[in-house]
């Protein structure tokens, strides 16, 4: 393990971390602008041109607010909650391949922090840990509304995790590998997995909405029933962390969807572009394409939030257990049969 390798990975991690935070920051701005657009308003436009400095103003406000810890709260866990939410949101980016390898001189730099051979399962594990931030925070607040929200979050997360796992199994039947890098390489050009697994993609996307607590599945922070849900008692930057973690989660799950089903950094005609732009610019164009796909998904998340009303809790459970899980199992069986037939002939 030479020193250049360590520096290379360190720089890559720092860049990815910075980009995730920046995107999360501007997602808050984008969300308000998209909401304004969909509701025929202007949205924030006071701080800087087009309100472009609004996230900075919000951030300063969050830091300056008074920090309140309720007197009967479990103090230590009250502080662990938001930190855990932020941590689990950020570590998911470690296995996502951001672009094909860059060659500088005779040194090949992969644009991926680590390519473990159980990459999908790692993402899945991180997603399943994500609920602890909400649960611990909700319980530690010592508030009945927060507690109800924590319990809702737990049952929702568990229910939709099953359908999500089953939809991934069908994808694994097609790809035959769990390494995210290999999955992306297989989708070279326009052979995107969404063409082979349209139903699987739909199921995975619905479950991503539920796992990131986004509308129409944002039952844990349903303000008409639960005030603010699990972050009712939070103020200052701890509240900021919870809100921020939601946007980072959205960014990571958009990246995962783009990687698994929409070809990651692959695009039609990429060979021609790679040939004509060289080994440094070419992969970076791929990365740019990847980010365009991610932004499209983030926009879709927001579009849905401001279009579809929230589910009732029993509808949520009904959809998860009686709608998505049977569909996912049917998808696995059909995929298996089709693959068996193709291999036979």
């Amino acid at each position, binding site marked *: 393990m030479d020193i250049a390798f360590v520096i290379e990975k360190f720089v890559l991690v720092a860049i990815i971390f910075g980009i995730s935070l920046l995107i999360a920051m501007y997602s808050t701005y984008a969300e308000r602008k998209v909401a304004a657009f969909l509701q025929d308003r202007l949205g924030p436009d006071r701080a800087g041109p087009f309100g472009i400095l609004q996230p900075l103003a919000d951030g300063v406000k969050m830091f300056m607010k008074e920090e309140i810890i309720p007197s009967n709260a479990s103090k230590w*866990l009250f502080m662990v909650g938001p930190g855990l939410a932020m941590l689990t949101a950020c570590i998911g980016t470690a296995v996502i391949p951001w672009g094909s390898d860059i060659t500088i001189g005779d040194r090949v730099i992969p644009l991926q922090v680590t390519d*473990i*051979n*159980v990459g999908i*399962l*790692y993402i*899945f*594990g991180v*997603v*399943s*840990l994500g*609920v*602890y931030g909400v*649960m*611990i925070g909700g*319980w530690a607040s010592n508030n009945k509304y927060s*507690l109800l929200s*924590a*319990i809702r979050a*737990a*049952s929702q*997360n*568990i229910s939709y*995790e099953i359908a999500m796992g089953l939809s991934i199994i069908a994808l694994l039947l097609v790809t035959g590998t*769990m390494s995210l890098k290999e999955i992306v390489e297989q989708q070279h050009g326009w052979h995107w997995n969404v063409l082979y697994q349209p139903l699987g993609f739909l199921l995975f996307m619905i479950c991503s909405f539920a796992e990131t607590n986004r509308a129409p599945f944002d039952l844990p922070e349903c303000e008409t029933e639960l005030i603010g849900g699990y972050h009712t008692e939070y103020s200052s930057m701890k509240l900021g962390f919870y809100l921020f973690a939601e946007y980072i989660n959205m960014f990571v799950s958009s990246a995962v969807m783009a990687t698994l089903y929409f070809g990651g950094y692959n695009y039609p005609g990429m060979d021609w572009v790679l040939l004509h732009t060289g080994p440094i610019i070419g992969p970076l164009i791929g990365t740019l394409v990847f980010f365009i796909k991610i932004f499209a998904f983030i926009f879709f998340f927001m579009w849905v939030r401001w279009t579809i009303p929230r589910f009732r809790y029993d509808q949520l459970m009904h959809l998860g257990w009686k709608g998505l899980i049977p569909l996912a199992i049917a998808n696995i069986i059909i995929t298996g049969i089709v693959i068996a037939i193709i291999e036979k002939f």
Partner: protein
Amino acid sequence: MGTSVFYFVATLSVFFSLMVIFSKNPVHSVLYLIVTFFTFTVHYILLNAQFLAVVNFIVYMGAIMVLFLFVLMLLNLNKDNEPLKSGAVKVVGVIAGCCLVVTLIGSLKATAVSDPVILRNPNLGLLKNLGKELFGQFMLPFELSSILLLSAMVGAVLLTKKEKV
């Protein structure tokens, strides 16, 4: 390097397992248990069993412990509404604990240190090799255990549907 990391993680495992028993608040106990499971995941990675590590991470830390926490939060146990335990229960508990310690010491003394197991294939824990073993040599036990789990699941569903029988 390898052994020192092992001893460090093993110390953490023992420490957090003890914290599970000694913490008064049941929710804290569960949280310590989650950390204990995390140290187990690290042990699996040290043994080069990546698949087992990730599955332990997802199933135990991500699913089962969420359900534990869910139930405990729903029950909302704390000191105020905990039923008082009588002195007799404590005495019985101490006696049972001492018996367990004696048995453990006795069985530890009786065992001889075995030779370290050397795997034919050191990469057995990787996903591909594990899958080939499970669906090749151990096909029948694997399928039987899955049927066992399925029947347990059906039984649990039936138990909750009492009123319709």
